[in-house]
């Protein structure tokens, strides 16, 4: 496991990082937690000429709620920070549940949420969660800062919308307008395994009515799947056995699983349906879903 030769820089500011990236053309990569990039380099599936390590840049390890309830997650907030977060536990059931089932505790100590979004692995859990929550990614480049909706951020497997000299600085989850519930369920073969199937559901309700819904799927397509039809089937209606079943069926149809050594396509579709039902049934029961199944 010996990577190709590469240069290594550890800038102290975002501006410096952007300048280093801009100077290297396509040949540079940002290094965040390294939990995806380093294995790829050791296997020589990735061979960047320059690594720009952002870990020494101060002030990026935050996650915080603005006064209006918008949640911001900095580029160096680790999975483990989010797993231990009181904010998430109290008000972000989907994120709280996901944070505990990503990889294993060792990987969670290093890996970052923003890095996971950038990596755009179809089996990455955070992309589904942030998609379901209607989140965005804030990027900084030579031309300044821009905000990219999550639904536009992932272009395909391992492809994101960042330019070569752009650094993702934070992920943003918009403030809820109603009561928030939902959850994240993941089928894995063992702890530390990527999802055979993962389902993120985030809904907001006012009274009995669902006012906003997001459903996104992990591991059942070439990229994170935004199950938009399933989500919109819930909006404007109360959660009932019927609406839940309908959304679950639609989500299963929107999945694009393939048969592989983790399971048959048919089974994965079935699991999408099952997980959507299980998460929504808990929301229906008034459970904000603090515990994963």
């Amino acid at each position, binding site marked *: 496991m010996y990577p190709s*030769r590469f240069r290594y820089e550890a800038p102290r500011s975002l501006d410096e990082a952007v300048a280093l990236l801009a100077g290297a053309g396509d040949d540079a990569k940002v290094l965040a937690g390294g939990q995806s990039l380093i294995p790829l380099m050791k296997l020589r599936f990735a061979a960047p000429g320059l690594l720009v390590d952002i870990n020494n840049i101060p002030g990026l390890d935050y996650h915080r709620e603005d006064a209006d309830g918008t949640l911001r997650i900095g580029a160096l907030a680790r999975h483990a920070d989010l797993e231990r977060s009181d904010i998430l536990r109290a008000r972000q059931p989907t994120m709280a549940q996901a944070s505990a089932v990503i990889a294993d505790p060792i990987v969670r100590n290093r890996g970052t949420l923003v890095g996971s979004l950038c990596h755009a692995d179809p089996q990455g859990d955070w992309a589904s969660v942030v998609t379901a929550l209607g989140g965005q990614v804030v990027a900084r480049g030579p031309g300044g800062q821009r905000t990219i909706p999550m639904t536009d951020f992932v272009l395909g497997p391992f492809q994101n919308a960042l330019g070569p000299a752009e650094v993702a600085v934070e992920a943003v989850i918009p403030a809820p307008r109603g009561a928030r519930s939902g959850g994240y369920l993941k089928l894995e073969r*063992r702890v530390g395994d990527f999802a055979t199937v993962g389902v993120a559901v985030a809904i907001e309700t006012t009274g009995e009515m669902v006012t906003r819904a997001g459903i996104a799927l992990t591991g059942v397509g070439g990229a994170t799947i935004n199950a938009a039809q399933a989500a919109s089937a819930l909006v404007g209606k109360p959660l009932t056995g019927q609406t839940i079943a309908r959304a679950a069926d639609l989500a299963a149809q929107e999945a694009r699983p393939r048969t592989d050594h*983790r399971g048959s396509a048919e*089974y994965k579709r079935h699991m999408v349906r099952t997980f959507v039902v299980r998460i929504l049934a808990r929301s229906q029961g008034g459970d904000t879903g603090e515990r994963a199944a």
Partner: protein
Amino acid sequence: MSQALDEVKIGGLGASRKRVEDERFIRGRGNYTDDITLPGMLHMEILRSPVAHARIRSIDVSRAWEIPGVRLVLTGEMLASRNLAWMPTLSYDTQAVLATDKVRFQGQEVACVIADDPYIAKDACEAIEVDYEQLPVIVNPAQAVAPDAPVIRDDKENQPDNVIFTWEVGDRAGTDRAFEQADVISRLRLHYPRSHPSPIECCGSIADFNRATSKLTVYMTTQAPHIIRAAVAMVAELPEHMIRIVSPDIGGGFGNKVPVYPGYVCSILASILLERPVKWIEDKSGNLISTGFARDMYLDGEMALRRDGKILGVRIHADSDHGAFFSDAQPSKFKIGLLHSTFACYDVPAAHLTARGTYSNKAPGGVAYRCSFRVTEAMFFQERMIQAAATDLGMDQAAFRRMNFVPDDAFPHRTPFGFLLDSGQYAKCLDVGLKAIGYDDFRARQEEARQRGRLLGLGISTMTEPLGAGNSREFDILGIKMFDSAELKVHMTGKAILRTGAKTQGQGHETTWAQIVAHELGIPADDVVVEEGDTDTAPFGMGTYASRSTPVAGAAVAMVSRKIRAKARKLAAHLLEVSEEDVEWELGRFYVRSAPDRGVTIQECALAAYSNMPDGMEPGLENTAYYDPPNLTWPFAVYIVTVEVDPETGVWDVTNMVAVDDCGVRINPMIVEGQIMGGLTEAYAMANMQFITFDAEGNCIGSNYMDYLLPSAWETPGFELHSEVVTPSPHHPIGAKGIGECAAVGGPAAFVNAVLDAISHLGVRNIDMPLLPDRVWEAITYRRDVSGAPPVRSDD
């Protein structure tokens, strides 16, 4: 009046003494092969084939040579010019060191680069251009024997097809008669998937050829250093006394580190050519895709049964897939290992077994992964067939087993395949297990749960297995008999050094061998240092695998201690000024029979051996024992698992697991329990998640730890261990039996039987391992068996 020694206090038999080796392992002070750095050392990397079956049109190494720091590029052609392109295997076949004509499996060694550092070596491997002409691929026995199958081993004369061997054992006619008389015939077709021993430390070697002394020293990850020395002498045509193999600390072996691998051979050749030390350390993918696999067998089993439950006969056919080279590490006489130990714990009047081994475009190996040569398959098939037969008869799983067990008064018992069982108390063990799991009311709880839509299951696995290969009449590897050895040197202060021909890789020999010495001589275990693995100092032995260390090398330790005691007795008589016949022994001390107060300690005898020996006696207190075991030892085990299956997802959880192991006398109970827990964890892995499979192109699925799953503490269930039943081996000097593998051998069937028990009311008879959730779900949803290897990635 002197106090008799307390055996447990001095760390003798039965003491749960802390492992002495852990001190250095836990502190990060172990000395593994990769920790060794020699002056002027170079680094070797291997270029492996990306495809499973292809003719090599050309290999262009010119760009690799151009990279600064590259010292040598080895190809098959260069090896062929030295007659080293092929090497003999442990099963009388040949194996390519570096490919010449064809590559025959994905991951096969094609070229090696030796360079100043491993990064350069890797760069240079990437610069080698190989032109492959792809050939049709075979990935299972059915394809191997298809009429138009390509011949994989076209390098061999007299090899017109892909069949390596056919083999049979037992009584065909008698078995046929049993089936004619049967009331019920129970049939099952099973697959034991390919798995990999997967030690955390991969294989590696540092070869150091010194031109000035003509001596070759090789530090390497081997479980059997003396066998390797002989093999290197033959392959490299070097005189055996000029070869020193050193096996330093080993990070797990599990059978993976028994064979000779191309990497070892290439590092040795490179060191001879370059006259510098050459280090090769395999990476994880290299280990998983190219080194000794295990299992990979299909079985057709039939049982002839009398209506009341008596087994009349067993008929078995096994198809085993050995990969591209037949390099199973197993006793030469037995082509399919000890598969015929199957059904040993049951009183089966007639049995017949046939086996056929075939080549495929998969990695070679067939190593005894935590088992005595195919015993894992034997016991898995046995216990799956037993459960199916009881179900077919409508009999209780426990009652069916109890009725057919070899009874306590029948030992020594000859099995229909010719093994001789030494001892056991099977029904008693089963009763302990059933009581612990709460068997009496389980069926009622299961029924009640089913009413509420919940699926509970209970699975039993009971088995005895042959451990401690083996007696020299039947067991040899390439003609070398499978005895073992121990050498004990007691110093004048009563401290001692013990060396054996075995090689610890986690079993704790440094701890337990000293305990046997303490038991035999009364020398505190802390006063005995144990050393293994250096062929220049250790007595000749066959190494550690197949649970043979305690039955064979451990017996040699007891025997050499007894030789020392015999000499010490003479010294004691001399010191006490009485005749030898008047001297009595108690732990650690000789005394005068008529005056028990007058005595000398073993330490006083040791001093006398160097300072005050009787006239005519050779000085010193040292000896060596070679032990040829009269028979195998046969531990017995009962594993019972309860599970709950989620009918909606197919996910199953272990709710309880009970293990009752009767392995005779336990030297160090703590280490024995550790071995059992380790084995149960591996058994759970096999049943639940672990396998290596191949797609139609021969791509290996399971070539890294994201796909080849090892269970961690998070998902491994808890185990309740029982040691109430102790049946000493009558022929072992201290009554011990092997234990290292029992749980890995007997465990898998317990898990599988439990899941199938939970869904038996749906008419499902079999799900092949691993019982991944989707396979269980499919069985539940469609009420059908799910057989064969899991499907592999299909590109839509």
